[in-house]
């Protein structure tokens, strides 16, 4: 049983559950739109949604900073992006709030929400988060920086450099590794020697925690603990959330080419969303009827978001050279 979810009211958990469903439904729609030739490129959070939303629910959007990576579609929703905004990004429309249609969807950014604009290279957000953490420590207002990445990124030098810096300076940073065991087609055994990523924290003198990414309450608990540590000036924590990649790396990849059909079927049967639903029903916070109703509402939201984004205008070609420098 969770020990530290007192602040998790049923309302907050149900709200998080709705965000998880939104992420899944929007993502499913994005894949349909991609196959119909309407969206160029998508990276799916399928299998990661519960872990992502649980982590953000334990933090304070508006106060904290979030250096997300390209699989953080559900985390972006939890940080306050609306379904329509994320669809605008998928369609690369002018009013995409992250980049005005400049970057591939998945590079989330919003200054007012504290979501630091991402890029498509793997790992550079990790030292950046250390620097943001240093600034937040200097400011002394108890804010923290959450930075997420896959296990593939932990092979990058930037993972070491960022962890090392943040640990030395006790920066208020939460390093959140979403280990889905695959970096495109390269399995974990060719990426990480030893049991996983969490053990590496010991070398930096900081706590390393491994958690089941399909357990909303456990992920919430370990992230909330890491947040308490960070806000109290005790420094960073490395969390490794064990998750499933239930979709190919991207719309340009087909994981059936390099993963066993049996393994894919077994993982699909372990989808974390039904597990979260069952946990809420067990607690008496949700009924099957309530679940059906939420699902229908989310479907309508996806419908509206898709229609609005599809109808929105593309960026003006004349804007190509804007925002290269401050004066342009």
């Amino acid at each position, binding site marked *: 049983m969770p020990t530290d979810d007192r602040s998790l009211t049923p309302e907050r958990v149900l709200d998080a559950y709705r965000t998880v469903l939104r992420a899944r439904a929007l993502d499913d729609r994005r894949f349909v739109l991609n196959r119909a030739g309407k969206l160029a490129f998508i990276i799916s959070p399928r299998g990661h949604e519960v872990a992502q939303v649980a982590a953000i629910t334990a933090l304070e959007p508006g106060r904290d900073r979030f250096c997300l990576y390209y699989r953080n579609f559900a985390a972006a929703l939890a940080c306050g992006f609306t379904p329509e905004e994320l669809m605008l990004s998928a369609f690369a429309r002018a009013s995409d709030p992250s980049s005005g249609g400049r970057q591939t969807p998945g590079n989330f*950014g919003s200054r007012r929400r504290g979501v630091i604009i991402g890029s498509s290279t793997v790992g550079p957000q990790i*030292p950046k988060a250390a620097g943001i953490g240093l600034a937040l420590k200097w400011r002394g207002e108890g804010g923290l920086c959450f930075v997420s990445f896959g296990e593939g990124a932990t092979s990058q030098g*930037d993972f070491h450099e960022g962890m090392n810096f943040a640990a030395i300076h006790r920066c208020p940073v939460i390093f959140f590794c979403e280990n889905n065991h695959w970096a495109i087609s390269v399995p974990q055994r060719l990426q990480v020697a030893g049991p996983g990523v969490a053990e590496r924290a010991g070398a930096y003198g900081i706590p390393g925690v491994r958690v089941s990414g399909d357990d909303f309450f456990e992920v919430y608990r370990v992230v909330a603990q890491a947040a308490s540590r960070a806000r109290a000036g005790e420094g960073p924590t490395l969390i490794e959330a064990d998750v499933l990649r239930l979709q190919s790396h991207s719309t340009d990849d087909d994981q059936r080419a390099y993963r066993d059909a049996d393994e894919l079927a077994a993982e699909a049967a372990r989808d974390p969303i039904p597990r979260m639903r069952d946990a809420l029903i067990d607690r008496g916070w949700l009924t099957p009827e309530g679940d059906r109703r939420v699902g229908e509402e989310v479907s309508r939201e996806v419908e509206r978001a898709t229609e609005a984004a599809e109808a929105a205008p593309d960026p003006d070609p004349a804007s190509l050279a804007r925002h290269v420098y401050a004066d342009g």
Partner: protein
Amino acid sequence: MAERNLVQAIREALLEEMERDPRVCVLGEDVGRKGGVFKATEGLQQRFGEDRVLDTPLAESSIAGVAQGLALEDYRPVAEMQFADYSYPAFNQIVNEIARVRYRSNGDFSCPLVIRAPTGGGVRGALYHSQSPEAFYCHVPGLKVVLPSTPADAKGLLKAAIRDPDPVIFLEPKKLYRGARQELPEGEAALLPLGVATVVRPGGDLTAITYGFMRLVTLQAAALLSRDRIDVEIIDLRTLRPWDIETCVRSVEKTGRLAVIYEANRTGGFGAEIAAELAERCFASLDAPVTRIASPDVPAMPFSTSLEHAFMLNPDKVADGLRRLARY
């Protein structure tokens, strides 16, 4: 007003800007108690403390990454790369992250920081303490690149770079660090605008455009040529991106002959860009082919004195090139 050499001018600019704006901070390897391997930050940590003058781990990617994090949080970091040759581990952070953050966020984020690095050779620094990598950074929209050659220019331009709303790569010719001294203005009077070249020596027969240590070498070459009654006009660009095209065009239209002198190896050097741009703009005024005088296309400057001399441009080599151009 006191007389200062170039490295003292750098230190004075840092000191004045740190006193003016509490957001300005310095970070890098050995910048703290030691005061930098060239003494550019001498005494600053004693004056401003260990946070504002921060000794980083020996890891350039995180120096740039942390600086970016600080800039995103509205600090004004000045990061030191101990040698420009050692900026390459930070190349991804500089080129993919720092340079593009404004553009890729459609203007929502910006990254006002300065990366300082000693550049160039002639100091027995050999392959890895002598390189002139300015062309790599000049190629990148979103960056500004400054390369001063006098103490007053170094001070005024560094102050302006620190106040600039965009990221600036600030390259300091180490050969001139302990060269000629100048009286330096203080405070606001010292400021110089980025992007403005200076006519170092007026002349009517040919235009020599240069920057960095080559300004001094070209001045000495021009003195040799004046014995042959060849009157060279020398322009020191001071800022390479954006560079002062108008001043250069005016000169070439007057003289009809153009040589570009740069210390980096010839192929793909920034001088090639100057040559191409001015050949296009001034075609009708030219009486001779645009000439590049640059270092040979070998991997770098060797350690041995004889090989170093063979690599480096000197007044005789530059004078030979200018003479050929004058007689064309």
